[in-house]
């Protein structure tokens, strides 16, 4: 759930509870206060009536007269003194001639004696507009609550969004960040201290990250340059030397040997440099490549070698298998898989290559011992009967590339003399 949504929901929940409960509580309290006020008023009136009774009223007809003048004061003759002498407060509906309707009244009833005779004095107060008044008071209260609540909600939403702006900007930049592009991450100034500190920490981290990557890249490039340049000179000079007129057969023999050695040295250097790059976690940009096309091309290129060893090849390749991967790495991977299957084969052996969108399988006949047991997946480890030209890095490269690109590699010694390499693509 988004942060803003979460805080807003919590706030809304709290506000609803408070407003809801508050409204009821508020109403009940006002209600209680009002009636307490009414009752006090009735009590005071009772005292005034009792005083007037003693001072100004002399005949029973005066009682009736008072009632006529003020319908809210009534003297009800009693036959005898009542057992209880406490005041009674009650609510009753009575007919009001002014409005012509029955209305609620609050009534205080008490016992008085007038000229020796017992009466019940009833004092009433009209509650006609009370409910309406109370209602309106509560409405105003709720309206205030509401305005407060909504206002705070709106403020919170607007304010929170603006408050968290620097955080979201940082998040967006980090999501876009790509190590190999070496782009600087610029973050806007923010008055909030925590975000400032976060920005600083992230910038430091990214800078270090970029520096480490740059250093590794430079190292790899320099190593490549330093190692390849002498080899390039060597190759060039050999190519020129080969042109020399008047070479004797013996000299040509030495040259041939040199040329072969130079080849192996170059190939070894390239493989080692690639391994170093893979080991150093350098970034290999991906593109969409067609694995099927690569396999087909390389098989075609290796036709000569296949024929030279009299191998039978069976293929079952999907029409196209798109894959997101670094093209160079893919080509080295496929090349090494196929070359290994050819080279570690015996004359007249077999080679199976199958490719589906999920799996690449290269299977070959060969030595009667599982490669894993022979420790062949270790760097430079060569089998005892391996042809001299094999450099021993092929399997290591395959393994490293597969690890690096997230393509699980499985080797299985399927049956005696039969080896299967599988790369899982999906």
């Amino acid at each position, binding site marked *: 759930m988004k942060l803003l949504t979460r805080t807003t929901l919590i706030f809304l929940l709290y506000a609803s509870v408070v407003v809801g409960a508050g409204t009821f509580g508020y109403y009940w309290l006002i209600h209680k206060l009002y009636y307490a006020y009414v009752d006090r008023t009735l009590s005071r009136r009772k005292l005034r009536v009792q005083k007037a009774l003693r001072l100004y009223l002399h005949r029973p007809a005066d009682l009736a007269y008072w009632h006529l003048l003020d319908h809210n004061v009534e003297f009800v003759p009693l036959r005898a003194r009542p057992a209880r002498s406490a005041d009674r407060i009650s609510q009753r509906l009575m007919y009001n001639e002014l409005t012509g309707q029955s209305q609620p009244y609050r009534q205080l009833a008490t016992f008085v004696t007038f000229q020796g005779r017992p009466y019940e004095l009833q004092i009433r107060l009209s509650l006609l507009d009370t409910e309406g008044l109370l209602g309106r008071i509560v409405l105003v209260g709720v309206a205030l609550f509401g305005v407060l609540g909504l206002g705070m909600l709106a403020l919170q939403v607007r304010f929170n969004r603006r408050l968290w702006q620097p955080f979201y900007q940082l998040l967006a930049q980090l999501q876009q960040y790509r190590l190999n592009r070496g782009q600087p991450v610029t973050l806007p100034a923010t008055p909030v201290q925590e975000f400032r500190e976060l920005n600083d920490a992230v910038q430091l981290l990214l800078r270090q990250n970029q520096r480490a990557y740059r250093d590794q890249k430079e190292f790899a490039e320099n190593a490549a340059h330093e190692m390849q340049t002498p080899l390039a000179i060597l190759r060039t000079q050999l190519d020129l030397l080969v042109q020399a007129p008047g070479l004797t057969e013996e000299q*040509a023999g030495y040259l041939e040997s040199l040329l072969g050695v130079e080849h192996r040295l170059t*190939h070894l250097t390239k493989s080692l440099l690639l391994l170093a*790059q893979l080991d150093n976690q350098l970034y290999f940009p991906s593109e969409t490549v067609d694995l099927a096309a690569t396999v087909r091309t390389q098989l075609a290129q290796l036709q000569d070698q296949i024929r030279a060893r009299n191998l039978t090849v069976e293929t079952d390749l999907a029409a196209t298998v798109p894959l997101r991967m670094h093209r160079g790495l893919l080509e080295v991977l496929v*090349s090494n898989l196929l070359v290994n299957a050819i080279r570690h084969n015996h004359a007249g052996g077999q080679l199976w290559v199958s490719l589906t969108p999920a799996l690449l399988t290269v299977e070959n006949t060969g030595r009667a011992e599982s490669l894993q047991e022979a420790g062949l997946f270790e760097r430079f480890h060569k089998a005892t009967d391996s042809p001299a*030209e094999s450099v021993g890095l092929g399997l290591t490269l395959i393994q490293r590339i597969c690890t690096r690109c997230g393509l699980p590699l499985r080797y299985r010694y399927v049956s005696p003399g039969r080896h299967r390499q599988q790369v899982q693509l999906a």
Partner: protein
Amino acid sequence: MKLLIVEDEPALAAGLESYLRGQHYVCELAATFDQAQEKMLLYDYDCILLDLTLPGGDGLTLLRELQQQRPGAGVIITSARHAVDDRIAGLHLGADDYLPKPFHLPELGARVAAIVRRRRYNGANVVQAGALTVAVAARAVTIGGQPVSLTRTELDLLLLLLANQGRVISKGAIAEHLSGDAAEQFDTYETVYAHVKNLKRKLTDAGAPNYIRMVYGLGYRFDAEPA
């Protein structure tokens, strides 16, 4: 035809010049960024060999400038860096070809010839060598007017030989040219022998004299005027 060789390693530059001069190209050298920049802008070369690691600047910058000033220029990038992004960047910036070091001189010769062909003849030129006529773009070979049917590999081999006439091309160079990187891992050159033998036979069967000679087991040479 004039070439510019931008290379800071003197032994390498000398070797390149020597070989290409033998192929009848006029070569100029530049060993630093400034020299290269100056020469590039002064003259419209048929082909430029550009080394990316130059003292004084980055080869890619030169390439960018070149694309602005001389958009049709033919450029082969040579590089020992093998940086992961170099190849993509180079080709994106308009280089015609990317030849990582170390490379064989005959291979370079073939690539330069291809670029010169593209620039001068829009690729549609015809190579004459002795009795052979090769229409490169059409991939058609005729001898005395009669077409000769060659496999793709044999034609590639023939083009390599023709681009480096009179030069000994080592078996390794041929193997690499024909089979790309995969060939690097095999030392036996049986296949090279086989292809050359087939090519020779097809040419001589069609009535041409034998232009292709083996040199002591080192490699082969195409001589239009066989001795």
